[in-house]
């Protein structure tokens, strides 16, 4: 992999937006799963 300079970062495109959508979906899913686990008395140590 070649090094890249900070002023040559590519511009954001639709795929970056899709990645944020994916992050939001994963976060929401994790929240749902945590709430579900909490109902069984699950606690993070």
């Amino acid at each position, binding site marked *: 992999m070649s090094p890249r300079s900070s002023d040559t970062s590519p511009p954001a495109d639709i*795929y970056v937006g*899709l*990645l944020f*959508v*994916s*992050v939001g*979906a*994963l976060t*929401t*899913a*994790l929240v*749902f*799963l945590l*709430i*579900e686990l909490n*109902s*069984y*008395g699950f606690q993070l140590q």
Partner: protein
Amino acid sequence: MSFLGKVLIVAQVVLSLLFMCAAGAVYTAHTNWHEASVKKDADIAKLTTDRTNEVTALNQQLDARAQELTAEKNRADAVVGRAQQLEGDVARLNQETNSLNQQLQRANGLAATKSNEAEFRQSEAERERVQNETLRTSLDEQIRKTVTLEDELGTRNQAYEELVAQHAAVQDELEFVSRIARQANLNTDRQSVEMQVEPPLPVEGLVQEVRKDQTNRTKWVHVSVGSDDGLRVGHEMDVYRTAERNDGRAKYLGRIRIWSVEPDQAVGLVVEAAKNGIIEVGDNVTTKL
């Protein structure tokens, strides 16, 4: 970006969305098995407690039934003993019954005799009842007669009292008249007065009966004429015997004074007796001499 990177990004997005949808579905439509388990445990504990209580109650009932069974057994034993005693009593009563049957037969024989006697007594009672009815009827008649006689006696008593009062009044008047007669020197002898007032009528009769005194002389003469012929007490009659009864010669026998008079007969006292004759039945008496 290569084509492969783009495909991977799209796949990642699609899979992330699918994962989110699956997590949301699990969150919204899941079943909380933990709570269900706790609830089931509580139900099981409750059911266990209930079953335990039921078992305890059943055990108590079983003990009670056992006690009742024991009591029933004891009572059955007592009943058996009582039954044996009653069997003995029944045997004794059978003997007594036989004895009483014999007595009953004797009593029946005696009752038959008494029944015959009772029938005889009843027939006798019927006869006496008839006699009693007759006597009662006679008694009623006698009572009715008695009442009538008592009424008549009351009437007679009342009349007697009135007559007594009249007698007393007449006696007073007689005493008064007698006193006046004595003061006037009048004769108060009844016979002489009657003789003066009413001289004897010409009467003839026959001597019907004679009575003699102790010297065998005729004293009382019963003649066949009385007050209906005009004869009164105090009148004097001559006694004679006709010629037909004395060998063709009439005979004077004496004189009598009338002492008692009845309507068709009289009794006279001999006041003068002839020396040559005895008054006898069949001689004539007259006031005409």
